């Protein structure tokens, strides 16, 4: 469903991504790993249109994304979370989810005086998402008053409220303890089972190895390996990128 061909990104003289080829199929879970600064978040920013692509093409469900703006891309069905959590700070937990539904319903000027029949459906859906992420009882709290792990889950709930075909998770388990991470893995499985393709960046190898069908490895902006968790664990290039080359 997502196809990146020959994608490069340059910041001035620095090449953050070079000739990246990537193909994601429907209903699978993909992982993107690599050392810090390898260009993983940059890749997400290119897909979601937050940064312009320097070269190459990104196609989603047959549509070229590189000329679209980020709100148009998200309307095609790509949602994401952020490495440094970016909830809407002045809104409550529930409002953070409701606002993400706006493009799927009437949210223009008529939303001031018309209460659509559909509104109940959307409320119920928001309730379902928040319950799924275990946050329903906190719906009235300010989003920024939540604990770290809860904020990460709320970001996922908010992204899911867009009903995406493709969900990009940028380090969803960062800062979570083991129990929370286990929970998260279950949630991600559920999301995948409901028909959403998941593409995640993660440093926690338990998460990546435990959940991803295919893993891609970035190092210094280049894709150095791609394969099943077993392939990746055995790949010498990957081990070298992470641990350095043995000398002598």
């Amino acid at each position, binding site marked *: 469903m997502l196809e990146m061909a020959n994608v490069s990104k340059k910041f001035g003289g620095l090449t953050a991504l070079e000739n990246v080829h990537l193909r994601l199929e429907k209903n699978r879970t993909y992982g993107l790993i690599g050392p810090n600064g390898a260009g993983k978040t940059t890749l997400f920013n290119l897909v979601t249109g937050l940064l312009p692509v320097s070269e190459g093409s990104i196609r989603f469900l047959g549509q070229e994304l590189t000329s679209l703006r980020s709100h148009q891309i*998200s309307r095609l069905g790509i949602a994401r979370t952020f490495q440094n959590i970016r909830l*809407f700070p*002045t*809104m409550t937990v529930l409002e953070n989810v409701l*606002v*993400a*539904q706006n493009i799927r319903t*009437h*949210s223009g000027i008529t939303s*001031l005086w018309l209460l659509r029949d559909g509104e109940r459906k959307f409320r119920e859906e928001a309730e379902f998402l928040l319950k799924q992420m275990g946050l329903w009882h906190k719906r009235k709290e300010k989003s920024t008053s939540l604990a770290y792990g809860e904020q990460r889950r709320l970001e996922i709930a908010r992204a899911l409220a867009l009903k995406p075909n493709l969900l990009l998770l940028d380090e969803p388990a960062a800062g979570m303890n083991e129990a929370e991470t286990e929970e998260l893995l279950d949630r991600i499985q559920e999301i995948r089972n409901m028909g959403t393709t998941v593409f995640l960046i993660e440093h926690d190898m338990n998460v990546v190895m435990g959940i991803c069908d295919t893993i891609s490895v970035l190092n210094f902006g280049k894709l150095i390996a791609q394969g099943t968790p077993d392939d990746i664990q055995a790949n010498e290039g990957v081990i070298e990128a992470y641990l350095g080359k043995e000398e002598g």
Partner: protein
Amino acid sequence: MSVYIEGVLALMGINILLALSVYAILTTDQLSLGNTGFMAIGAYVSAYLTVKSGFPLVPALIIGALTASVIGLLIGIPALRLKGIYLVMATLGFGEMVRTFFMNFEPTGGASGFRGPMGSSLILIYAFVLVFVVFFWLLSRSRLGRSLDAVRDDPEVASTMGLNVTHLKVWAFWLGAFIAGVAGGLYAHHMFYIESSNFNFLLATMIVLYVILGGMETFWGAVAGAVIFSILPEALRFMKDWRLSFYGAVLVTMMIVRPSGIITREMVRNFEEWLGRIFRTEETKDA
């Protein structure tokens, strides 16, 4: 009611509208110091229509406001490229530009001003205040209101939620210009006489201050700020020459003591819950 009190109340109502016009633009995190420009356009256009063309007042006010809002669109689109202090400077320049335009524009009297508009009653002024207060109240509870909040909180994230940040920002500018245009029309027809210096930079600063001191999180802040800081200079008249110094001291103290403004969103939320508890005791379990 004495003429004096009526005059204070009328200007207070106009100040509420002006504060709301600044608030409208602020909902998308854009600060405009040029709303007196929109006000002047609304004032001159509507005054010309009623005095020279014999229009009834309310249609003239609407046409004046629409003219201001179209100019607002023209300003709002290029202004999107500017952020923070640069936008402030650009809008300030716009306000001054409009003011000097009317100073030199002979068909509306040029430097000698424009005489003759009349008919703004307290009822008319507060009818408009009511309309816009209800409008902002509905907006604050609507999906559109949430979209604006999202743009203000984090425009980049808002765009990944599918929200067209450009449209929302331009719409906010359009709305702010429209409200300022209405306020200008009402002002002209309250004063009977307008000149370009009425729409000066000091007024532009004052109406921004109303919003900052009243609270930027909710439109109630703009309303409260305009009310309090319209009455305060009058209430301080007994201080004679020291009045404005004291007024300035109040402003500085307010900023230090309560930087988030008089009214915060949390206050409104608590107040609504309290009202809810009073008026419906049965269904409070799940609100």
